[in-house]
């Protein structure tokens, strides 16, 4: 591409690339952070912070589960508003459910068990909801449009410069190197 029309095409591409870049930068940062977080899901929980500790309440009478629940709540000094309900899972496990998915799980015979408190990881929970498309519905279309814009940034980006630093210069080697990384992993996996 040369002459005035060629230059104008390059200028248009550069300007568009710049403005689309501004437009998608926040979402790209969110998706990147969420991507790293979710990649390591085997090692940690990217959505919730879960704290578990052992509790010893002493033997609990399960003849009246309302009273059993009240005893657990009082022994652990829990806020009444935190409590969602309770359930005798089995003869050896009684649970009191707390906000956000927390719980107390104890063996009524011994009163030994665990207290689990749960809270959402601020920011990351919301970023994961967007990235993993938990919102569904219209967000799916927004995410598709975002993906198209990223596609443009990738393809448009390689045609932004001319000369030695352009695609026909060192650019082609860097594009090939970038393409080689997934190919090597796919072949060797």
């Amino acid at each position, binding site marked *: 591409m040369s002459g005035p029309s060629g230059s104008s095409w390059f200028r248009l591409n550069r300007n*568009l690339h710049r403005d689309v870049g501004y437009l998608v930068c926040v979402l790209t940062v969110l998706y990147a952070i969420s991507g790293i977080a979710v990649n390591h899901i085997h090692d940690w*929980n990217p959505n919730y912070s879960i704290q578990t500790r052992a509790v010893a309440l002493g033997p609990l009478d399960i003849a009246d589960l309302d009273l059993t629940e009240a005893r657990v709540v009082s022994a652990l000094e829990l806020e009444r508003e935190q409590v969602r309900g309770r*359930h005798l899972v089995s003869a050896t496990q009684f649970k009191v459910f707390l906000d956000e998915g927390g719980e107390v799980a104890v063996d009524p015979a011994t009163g030994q068990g665990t207290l689990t408190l749960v809270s959402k990881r601020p920011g990351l929970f919301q970023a994961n909801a967007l990235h993993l498309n938990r919102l569904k519905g219209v967000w799916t279309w927004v995410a598709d449009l975002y993906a198209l814009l990223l596609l443009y940034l990738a393809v448009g980006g390689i045609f932004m410069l001319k000369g030695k630093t352009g695609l026909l210069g060192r650019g082609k080697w860097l594009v090939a190197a970038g393409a080689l990384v997934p190919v090597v992993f796919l072949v060797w996996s």
Partner: protein
Amino acid sequence: MLTLISLALLLAGCGETDSSLNPSLNPSSSALPSAVAPAAAVPGEAYGEPLTLSESTSVTALLADIDRYDGQKVRVEGLVTEVCAKRGCWMSIAGDQPGQELRFKVEDGVITIPLAAKGRYAVAEGTCRKVELSAEDALAMRQHEAEEQGKPVDTTTPLPTFVVKLEGTGAVIRDRS
């Protein structure tokens, strides 16, 4: 620049989320598309596909006669006693009696059940499956779940010889009352 303004307007237009298109966008909404089936009028937060069956089978009845329900589409309801803490890809629904539990399993990413569903009430629909477990499989499953939930391995209850799963398509979750 004109192109960019058009793109921005398109984004802004898409951003005006119409939660009526997808009940899961508006968890407090009890209004599900009434045209689907009368069963869809179950109040609560909807996840996945709308419910299609109008009657629930009790978890107790289902567990008492698993072979009869194996492979059938059923709707069940009950207290949510556990939820997959990492991916929200399953929840356990309790029966009337201690020890009775049904696993509602969904495809990863298709439906995400919030951890806060634990202790609430679910009306869920899917295909019933009985899955036999060897002792090793049962132990591995329990260890995996403990790791997923960030809790110690439960050694107080005997290992199951089989699990009953509901391959879930949709659910409505609400408070117990």
